[in-house]
């Protein structure tokens, strides 16, 4: 006993913080925050992934049909010199959020329809509406812009059909962006609450060890020395909580990723493993987006950083009351 005390343990506890700074409550609360942060992160990544998918996959293009493409369009004061097709393409390319518009040529259209119509029926092709493939830009037009575009097209070329899928893509994108913003806000709130929890625990530790702090301060300890003792303890407890919270969130996230897989995997990828198999584990872990695998280990690091900075600031401010 006496012998052992002659050896300075690593992490020597001058201020008696091991007892004073709640070693169960703080990690537990930080773990809860980290769990919530993991869910918010998953929401953020998920919304971003869906948005990207819609934008570059199904959402990247839409089609516009123009019946009687060769007839003259209607201008502001009556019939326009240009054809309805030219006029529609002109309007489309002038719309912000649209990267390009390309009218399928007769041969292209014919090739597209050959399985149904057979080759060579030129007269039938002449009577079909023209089809314009439209590529959307980043950011795509808002739903309101789509509505305005639809009106403008139908005024200059009545009967033109703007595929409503584009409108829905725009709405879904707006929704995904809002979800992302909410997830970001949730992350900020969770971080603020975690900082508050650390600050409260640090203040409790300061109150409990006030006498020891005053003694060590009187012996010539700098504010930095005392703050670092608290910050070390807070960092340890907060990162323990961060690790626990991230680990607890992992199964939940994997389950969510499995549910989301069919939406994000695209048409080419196979659905998440259907039955139990050895390869099932890999598919399972692979179902979590790479971004999440990179962000999850960041949670304990973020918790540690919040613990360190909050304790440093709290203790240094508190110490200013001492001479």
């Amino acid at each position, binding site marked *: *006993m*006496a012998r052992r005390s002659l050896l*300075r343990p690593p992490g020597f506890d001058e201020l008696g913080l091991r007892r004073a700074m709640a070693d169960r409550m703080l990690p537990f609360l930080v773990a809860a925050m980290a769990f919530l942060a993991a869910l918010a992160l998953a929401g953020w990544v998920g919304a971003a992934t869906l948005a990207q998918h819609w934008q570059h996959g199904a959402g990247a293009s839409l089609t516009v049909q123009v019946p009687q493409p060769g007839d003259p369009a209607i201008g502001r004061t009556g019939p326009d010199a240009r054809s309805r097709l030219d006029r529609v393409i002109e309007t489309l390319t002038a719309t912000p959020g649209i990267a390009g518009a390309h009218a399928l040529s007769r041969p292209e259209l014919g090739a597209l329809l050959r399985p149904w119509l057979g080759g060579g029926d030129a007269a039938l092709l002449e009577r079909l509406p023209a089809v314009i493939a439209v590529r959307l830009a980043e950011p795509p037009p808002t739903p309101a812009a789509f509505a305005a575009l639809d009106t403008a097209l139908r005024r200059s070329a009545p009967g033109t059909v703007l595929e409503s899928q584009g409108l829905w893509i725009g709405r879904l994108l707006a929704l995904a962006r809002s979800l992302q913003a909410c997830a970001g806000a949730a992350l900020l709130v969770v971080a603020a609450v975690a900082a508050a929890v650390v600050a409260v625990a640090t203040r409790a530790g300061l109150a409990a060890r006030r006498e020891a702090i005053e003694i060590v301060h*009187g012996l*010539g300890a*700098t504010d930095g*020395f005392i703050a670092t003792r608290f910050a070390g303890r807070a960092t340890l407890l907060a990162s323990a909580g961060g690790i626990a919270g991230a680990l607890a969130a992992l199964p939940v996230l994997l389950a969510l990723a499995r549910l989301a897989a069919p939406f994000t995997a695209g048409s080419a990828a196979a659905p998440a493993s259907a039955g139990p198999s050895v390869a099932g584990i890999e598919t399972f872990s692979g179902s979590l987006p790479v971004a999440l695998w990179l962000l999850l280990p960041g949670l304990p690091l973020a918790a540690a950083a919040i613990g360190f900075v909050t304790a440093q600031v709290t203790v240094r401010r508190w110490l200013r009351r001492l*001479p």
Partner: protein
Amino acid sequence: MLRFDAVGLHYLSGGTPGPDVLRDLSFTVPEGAFRWLLGPSGAGKTSLLRLMYLDARPSHGRLHVLGTEIGSAPRRALPGLRRRIGVVFQDFRLLDHLPVFDNVALPLRLAGRGEGQIRADVGEMLRWVGLQDRAGTHPAELSGGEQQRVAIARAVMARPSLLLADEPTGNLDDAQAQRLLVLFRELNRLGTTVVVATHNETLVARYPARALRLDRGRLTEVG
């Protein structure tokens, strides 16, 4: 070493200045000197010592401690000065959660000394105060006199330039009190400036030295 120029002190009570507890003190304590600090209870002895060990800053006047003007010194300049001052408090102020060894080693650890040197120096110091067998004991398990010796060992551990003691014989028997004084005179002989506040006039009579005498916050005698 210590220079007081018209120094006054009042405590703050609820943000407003209370009555002056020290008034217009002017004196110097040169390097290597020994001074008694005398006066009736409530005269302001502890308040004067607090100014000396930088636990309070003067409300008026100019105070130099170890060559630094305390009134205008930035806060970050004080810890370095405090490490050069050893204090024996009347109530010891030991850290209860640490054994004797770590209490005595604290000034050396704050000074950033190596653990090997700390072990040797603290062991020697504990032998000097006769506590070599109590290194692993916690302060609460020690007698009052033993705690006092731990406090003294901690105060002198880092070889301070200035040693301040507030009623260090308050709860010691006569033999212990005399032993303590022998210790202080010895340190003083080795070059440490020493100021000892006490009520114990018999001790003062036995160890005559120059004295600072306080009465109701004023200096009535400057030895």
